[in-house]
């Protein structure tokens, strides 16, 4: 260990009580930006490349796989409906499978693991022992989760819609997307997916901070979001799905027992969801400032 003996007292003395110059020079915002980017770089790698990411890939690929199978093994005459019914068909697939189930559980998996996963892996203390504001940590981790879920579920949304349309009615679909309202619908669904990741992401990040076993609260939330169509108008508004459903271009049929309410206009839905996300992230930041690390019992 020759290098150890090379450390002179002078060198060590120079280090003591002298914060790094470049760090000191950086303004708060530029420092926070650098820290956020550093957190992002590691967290994105984890979200996309770790073993935990496998489940996310499976969830995101599920509708594409199902639609591919459907296209491959479709019996002649299966597309007995008409092209005009495709909008309702995709709305059902999107609302029932993609939005309410896959995006929901995909976000639950990614965002709950942002902190809970680190507690299980016993590595959260490295962040807590760095000179980084806990709020910056929340933002960095949240953005990393958002990048992962938005990327994958955007592909899912776009891929599913195009696959469903083009596998059944290629010529009509081409006209619909290039000359008709198809592109606008596609963008609207994409926007809803992104907003779902934003809203659900914030909720599950908070759930992951509060609960040692976040699966049960996630299932309760899932139930709440699913029974939304049965709820009275006031309670409907205490959910993420209500605002998201208000934004889809073709409403999903919710059956004969649904309590019908007017969709909330986009100019209220979008800011409401963003405001809700901000409040939830604020609560998460407040909680994490007081959070203790004790891995015992994890």
């Amino acid at each position, binding site marked *: 260990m020759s290098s*150890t003996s090379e450390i002179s007292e002078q060198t060590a003395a120079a280090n003591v009580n002298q914060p790094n110059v470049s*760090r000191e020079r950086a303004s708060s915002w530029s420092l926070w930006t*650098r820290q956020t980017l550093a957190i992002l770089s590691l967290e994105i790698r984890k979200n996309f490349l770790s073993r935990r990411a496998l489940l996310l890939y499976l969830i995101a690929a599920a509708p594409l796989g199902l639609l591919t199978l459907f296209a491959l093994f479709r019996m002649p005459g299966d597309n007995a409906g008409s092209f005009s019914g495709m909008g309702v068909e995709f709305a059902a697939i999107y609302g029932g499978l993609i939005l309410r189930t896959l995006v929901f559980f995909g976000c639950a998996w990614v965002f709950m693991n942002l902190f809970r996963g680190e507690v299980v892996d016993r590595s959260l203390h490295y962040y*807590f*022992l*760095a000179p*980084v504001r806990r709020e910056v940590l929340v933002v960095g981790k949240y953005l990393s989760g958002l990048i992962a879920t938005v990327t994958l579920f955007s592909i899912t949304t776009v891929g599913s819609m195009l696959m469903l349309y083009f596998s059944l009615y290629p010529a009509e679909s081409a006209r619909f997307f290039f000359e008709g309202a198809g592109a606008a619908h596609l963008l609207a669904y994409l926007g809803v997916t992104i907003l779902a990741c934003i809203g659900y992401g914030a909720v599950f990040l908070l759930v992951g901070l509060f609960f040692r076993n976040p699966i049960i609260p996630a299932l309760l939330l899932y139930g709440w979001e699913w029974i939304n169509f049965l709820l009275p108008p006031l309670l409907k508004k205490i959910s993420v799905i209500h605002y998201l459903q208000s934004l889809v271009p073709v409403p999903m049929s919710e059956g004969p027992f649904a309590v019908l309410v007017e969709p909330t206009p986009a100019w209220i839905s979008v800011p409401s969801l963003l405001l809700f996300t901000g409040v939830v992230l604020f609560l998460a930041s407040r909680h994490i400032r007081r959070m203790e690390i*004790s891995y015992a019992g994890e």
Partner: protein
Amino acid sequence: MTPTTTATTTASSTQTVSSPTASAANLPAASAVSSDRLIVFEGVSKFYGEILGVNRVNLQIAPGITSLVGPNGSGKTTLMNLMTGLLKPTRGNIKVLGTSPDDPEAMFQKLGYCSQFDSFPRGATAREFIEFYLRVHGFAKQETREMTQAALERVSLTEAADRKVSAFSKGMRQRVRLAQSIAHNPSVLVLDEPLNGLDPMARAEIIRLFRQLADAGMYLIISSHILHEVDMMSDSVVLLHNGYVVAEGEVHGVRDEIEEHPIQILIRCDRPQILAARLFEHEQTVEARIHNDRQGLFVKTRRPDDFYLLLNKVITEQNLQIESVAPVDDDLSAVYQYLITADGGQI
């Protein structure tokens, strides 16, 4: 260097009151030094529900090496986690050179903590691991690279720096964590059992590094339950028992106690019989007993420093394969018990 540690406690359970050290008389008393230059615990208690972590701890820690000593469960790690903000005190205040653990942005610029949590990001190399957390500090890329290299050199890990940490031995992982905790050049270094898993030679070298850092004016707070190592490296000692600070002071008192009480060491190796025979030829060995599984040797010694030197020599001469060398807790507990009860708890 002015190592002074003062502690008071009103632990009714132990009926012990310790006072500022006599040695502090010819040095600036800790209480006279600005609290911005000290690590201060004021009436700190921590309860885990009904369970006591530490209770009514008052400490002022000055530069130098201060060892927190005590049996398992005595509150050493709790005290360190409180100091670094990983735990919040139920009562009391903590200041590290004038900064509260509630302000991590300010505190961790001057504090590094090498904890016992043996975990790393999956797939990371030693260099990536250290660089990454330096980036989180906010350092620029080039700076990060230089600081990482310097930290790796300090702990002699440059050759293995680009290998995955998951493939490292326990001792190497310990050194990676140590490098990470000193990489940003903190002035306070908190080390929870930093010598665990290191072979005798690496232990000696790391202790030398600690000594150099302390001599340069750093504050090193080290927890250990290995008394002879405490004796070798510490300027002052805080003895903890059942969550209370029961005594504190300079380290020579501890040494005297150790010489009275042999410590027992378990050496896991491939040929314990040969090792026993060779060790018995020397007066450092009081007793040697082969482990029931015949893969280890219990040795008692009153002079651990000399014994470890001898052990190194025998290992080299006999070309023995050593798996681990570790003191045996039961006997250490006996020494703590002796220290806690003798002379009213004064070291």
